[in-house]
């Protein structure tokens, strides 16, 4: 529809976006971005001029204000960002709390993997394998009762040893520790059964 005349150059073809199309693209870009997006970046990506993009952003902002929906477009730190409206913060907070808590962070998961496969294992040994401090991950795992202390190791400093708990078996659907897939199993799978 925007192609009203013949274009001789590729570049010119790109200029034929309607303003409402540009508004839509701005919305999509702001939505997918992790950080606030500047007009300049959008203009560069779309190869549109700054004024056009500024007008589009302004229109989008107006649209969100008129709609009075759950979201708003706001300018922050020199860029644009989609956020929820402040009115609904209570519901949002409540919702965010309901998210399943059985999930583990990657750090915790890594630490758990080391403990599961190397148990009983001490904190310095875990540090050695993971290459990073695991104190907070270990605390999380203890809190979630996925691991338990298994006495002290008779070595310098008598560090505490850790192993997996019964809850660990339950949560990962294992009858016992022997049901943990072995690394060799995995290799077999790769090589063909």
């Amino acid at each position, binding site marked *: 529809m925007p192609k009203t005349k013949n274009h001789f150059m590729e570049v010119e073809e790109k200029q034929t976006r309607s303003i409402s199309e540009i508004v839509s693209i701005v919305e*999509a870009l702001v*939505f*997918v*971005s*992790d*950080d606030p997006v500047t007009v300049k970046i959008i203009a560069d990506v779309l190869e549109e001029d700054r004024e056009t993009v500024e007008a589009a952003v302004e229109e989008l902002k107006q649209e969100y204000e008129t709609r009075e929906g759950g979201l708003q477009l706001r300018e922050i730190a020199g860029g644009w960002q*989609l*956020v929820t409206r402040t009115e609904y913060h209570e519901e*949002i907070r409540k919702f*965010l709390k309901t*998210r399943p808590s059985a*999930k*583990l*962070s*990657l750090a915790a*998961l*890594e630490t*758990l*993997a*080391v403990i*599961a*496969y190397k148990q009983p294992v001490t904190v310095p040994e875990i540090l*050695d*394998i*993971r*290459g990073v401090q695991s104190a907070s991950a270990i605390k999380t795992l203890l809190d979630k009762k996925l691991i338990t202390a298994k006495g002290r190791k008779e*070595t*310098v*400093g008598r560090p505490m040893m850790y192993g997996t708990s019964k809850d660990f078996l339950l949560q*990962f*659907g*294992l009858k016992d520790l022997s*049901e*943990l*897939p072995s*690394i060799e199993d*995995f290799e077999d799978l790769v090589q*063909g059964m």
Partner: protein
Amino acid sequence: MEQTEQLSFDFYKETAQITRESRDELKLHLGEFNGPLDLLLYLIKQEQANIFDIPIAKITDEYLKYIRLMKHLDISVAGDFLVMAATLIEIKSKMLLPQEISEKEEEEMEDPREALVRQLLEHQKFKNAAQMLYERTTVEQAVFPRGKIESDENNAETNASVFDLLGVFQKILARHVEEVQMEIEREEISLADMLKSLKKRIFENKELSLLAFFEEMHTRRELVTAFIAVLEIVRTESVQLMQTTTFGDIILKKV
């Protein structure tokens, strides 16, 4: 210069992937996808034959011709092809047998090709299903979820299964090996850095096994640096060397 011309696989046409190697050698590259069933479907199509009435002698000959071309194959893949070759030869010979129909068996006589045809049809169905998935994923790739927002940070969590656990563990091991290699390859650790880490270890744990500390070193150079660092720290800091038994481990202890 070896130039490899690759004719890429076209999803919509069933052409086997052919890699042209140097020295006029034509090699059929049979990836996992183009298994024996695919090759058969391909040959049947080439012959413009009816899948329900496969000219088995002709197709078998063609099939074996292709098999002969496959010299440098992955053994497990080649195995699948050889199994199919045997099946084809068996069907072919059954069809060549004079049709001695004993009265008892007459009703149960089955076309020797039947099982194969069933398998081919089943396979073709799933190939079509794969194509459907391919189209769906193409659409899905044009759709994007929102970027990270603040509330994600408090909840940077992943779901876990036993396989995740294993996968993660393997990655750690791989990373570990990599780090050790990198340490060997890169510039040796400086005395200053060695001192810093040694100090940190002693002050955090109050004491440190000298043996354990030395065992962490990956090269002779590092070991020497570590040794100098220990001497240095005993000289300049309030740290003592202690040995509990005559040949026992030496402990670095904060005074």
